[in-house]
């Protein structure tokens, strides 16, 4: 009758923001991360230089010594040893684990924890740990995920439940987070996909759902094998799939199939073959892609707790990070207040005064101002 346009499952995935904005080739992802890291390192060096200049000029005027401060002093006077891309990546993984554990502690559903982890991973593609403290960002990401995943938790309660956290600490970086997420909040996970595949395989196992007999009889003991594979695949999805880069390089369907492959290769092979013609180029390509994905997944053990050596390495890196934090971005609460004040909340006078000061400093051709940390 009409020229109906079949839009395939694949085409529909292509319309998602996860595909359009958050899918990368390995090279392109690495390129963006490298740029981010380099820019951040430059800015750290620049900020520390400014801070030291300010310090030396302040020495003369002898400012009050009681003003508490963090960060800048930790910076060595001269060369700053910044984190490399790989080091940042390892630390992000470490903080993602922390997020999962915090989520467990707060009894959040899987959906919230996993979305929060992806928010963190996405955020740190275009932002550096040296600029924004991962410990802060992870709280914000977790809190924000409760809002986007319909498991809302009152901010005050959320903050109370975590040590040394005030509501404003959580909110201060919310805008930064949403901007880093490019205002796309939907994350497509492979969990529901796994349930689908398992339900269908169960149906095949019990003979309720017919299957394509061209690919041979169904595997022996299929029901039991599906159950075992389901459990194992789920473990991978809850850990390795979140901590590695698979979400950036593969689709949820592929990730799910890859975890099933790891869990029971023969069973999964048979299942995919019964669905898709695998003997042509496209079929081979799917298998090759799943194998690659499985390989990437297996790079990280499917445990929430980091293995001891990983924890040790992360500890060392955290120390290193402390020495190369951008001193101007430590107090996000104060920064946020300053930004929001541009909102009309602040007196005209203050804005004018700031403007004058800005012009003044521009005239002098140098930025004397150090970090914007007043007392918090």
């Amino acid at each position: 009758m009409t020229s109906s346009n079949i839009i395939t499952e694949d085409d529909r995935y292509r319309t998602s923001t996860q595909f359009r904005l958050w899918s990368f080739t390995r090279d392109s992802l690495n390129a963006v991360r490298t740029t981010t890291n380099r820019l951040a390192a430059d800015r750290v060096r620049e900020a520390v230089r400014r801070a030291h200049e300010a310090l030396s000029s302040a020495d003369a005027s002898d400012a009050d010594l009681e003003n508490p401060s963090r960060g800048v002093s930790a910076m060595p006077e001269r060369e700053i040893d910044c984190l490399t891309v790989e080091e940042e990546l390892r630390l992000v993984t470490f903080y993602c684990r922390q997020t999962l554990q915090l989520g467990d502690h707060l009894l959040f559903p899987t959906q919230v924890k996993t979305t929060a982890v992806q928010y963190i991973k996405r955020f740190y593609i275009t932002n550096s740990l040296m600029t924004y403290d991962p410990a802060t960002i992870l709280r914000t990401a977790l809190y924000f995920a409760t809002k986007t995943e319909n498991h809302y938790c009152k901010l005050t309660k959320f903050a109370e439940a975590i040590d040394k956290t005030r509501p404003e600490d959580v909110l201060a970086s919310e805008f930064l987070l949403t901007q880093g997420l490019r205002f796309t909040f939907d994350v497509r996970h492979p969990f529901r996909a796994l349930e689908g595949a398992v339900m269908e395989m169960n149906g095949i196992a019990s003979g309720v759902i017919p299957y394509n007999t061209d690919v041979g009889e169904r595997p022996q003991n299929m029901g039991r094998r599906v159950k075992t594979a389901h459990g194992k695949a789920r473990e991978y999805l809850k850990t390795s799939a979140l901590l590695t880069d698979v979400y950036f390089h593969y689709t949820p369907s592929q990730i799910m199939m890859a975890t099933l492959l790891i869990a029971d290769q023969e069973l999964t092979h048979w299942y995919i073959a019964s669905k898709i013609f695998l003997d042509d180029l496209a079929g081979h390509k799917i298998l090759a892609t799943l194998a690659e994905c499985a390989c990437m997944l297996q790079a990280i053990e499917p445990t929430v707790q980091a293995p001891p050596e990983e924890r040790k390495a992360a500890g060392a890196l955290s120390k290193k990070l402390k020495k190369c934090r951008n001193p101007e971005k430590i107090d996000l609460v104060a920064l946020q207040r300053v930004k929001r004040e541009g909102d009309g909340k602040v007196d005209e006078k203050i804005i004018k005064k700031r403007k004058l000061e800005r012009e003044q400093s521009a005239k002098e051709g140098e930025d004397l101002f150090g970090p914007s940390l007043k007392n918090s």
Partner: protein
Amino acid sequence: MAVSPLVLPGAAEKGGPTAKSKLQSAAASSNGTPNAAQSSTEVNDVAEQMNEDEKAKYVKGKKLGEGTYANVYLGHISSSPSSLVAIKKIKVQQQYTEGMAPDAIRELKFLQELSHPNIISLISVFSSKDQNINLVLEFLPMGDLEMLIKDTSGVRYGMADIKAWMGMLSRAVWFCHENFVLHRDIKPNNLLIAADGEVKLADFGLARSFSDPYRLMTSTVITIWYRPPELLFGARQYSGAVDVWSVGLVFAELVIRVPYLQGINEVDQIAKLCMGVGTPTEENWPGVSKLPDYTVPAPPSPVMGIDHYLSMFGTVGQEGVDLLMKMLIMDPRRRITARQVLEHGWWSSDPRATKNEDLPKKGGGESKVAEDLGRRPGMVDDERAGKVARKLDFGGMR
């Protein structure tokens, strides 16, 4: 695991050698105020740069209107002054202490994903320097369906026109459901009209994706006149059937040109529903009495039969009345689904749906655009304000 697992290196660092406070105070004393100039002088982050790039693609024009939730501006694409857009600038809600408002989050989350001719399209998003979020939306200058329905003296339309509008609405809802999204606020003034006559479903401030098994949802969604009985009875686990009920009531309203069930509060809404559709009972809806807030006025009125509908909505023909009745089946399990709506025989029966270009119009103009986009999801305007479920309580929102 520790009591709080968040033992993070660097996070708890407090105090330190005096030298650093010296450094710090030096910076502070040379300035006196937090440094606002910083943001303008420093190099952008990659994320900031991307945002700037996006922002540069659009030119914000005059303000079309102001609402509690957002301001709406006319805008155009920088490279093409004739390509108009509406820019909805979401206000930072100072009094909202929970960060980014739920309406904005939901609207962004779903509009970013859904692309369909009958769903308002979100062209871009960027933030302005004061951290306000700007949604670049397609410009829909011809008002909304509510305006057409209300203008009984100025706008005349018939069955073919109703069929056209209902077709576009049903497609939009079907597409949402195919993408596992519940809209949860379907009503005539959320159906905006494009310059070419296309109807577009807007305002996703209450939308959410289908809930997984055992996960609860809030029942206080959908403006009450369009709210289905299961939500009036407090169901916390429901389906796309809630939107279909709303579609049915929009259908009825298009015919009689006033809302079919106008309750003044939830209790009254149930009473109106019992009179206009029938009283929900265990007979016509097994299990209904188990719903949390199930109460119905006595004595029960019978479920309305086809004669009632034919006498009231007969202008849409036998098939049309049949479709309407299926949308207004009280038991959500038996109510027609969005897909089945589109498979119904009414669409292929005569008369054929009017072509977009021939549909009746009412010049809405820019001010209407502003009203449509800015009004919501905060509060609803004028006399309807008291009757809508727009007070979002996140606490009950699981």
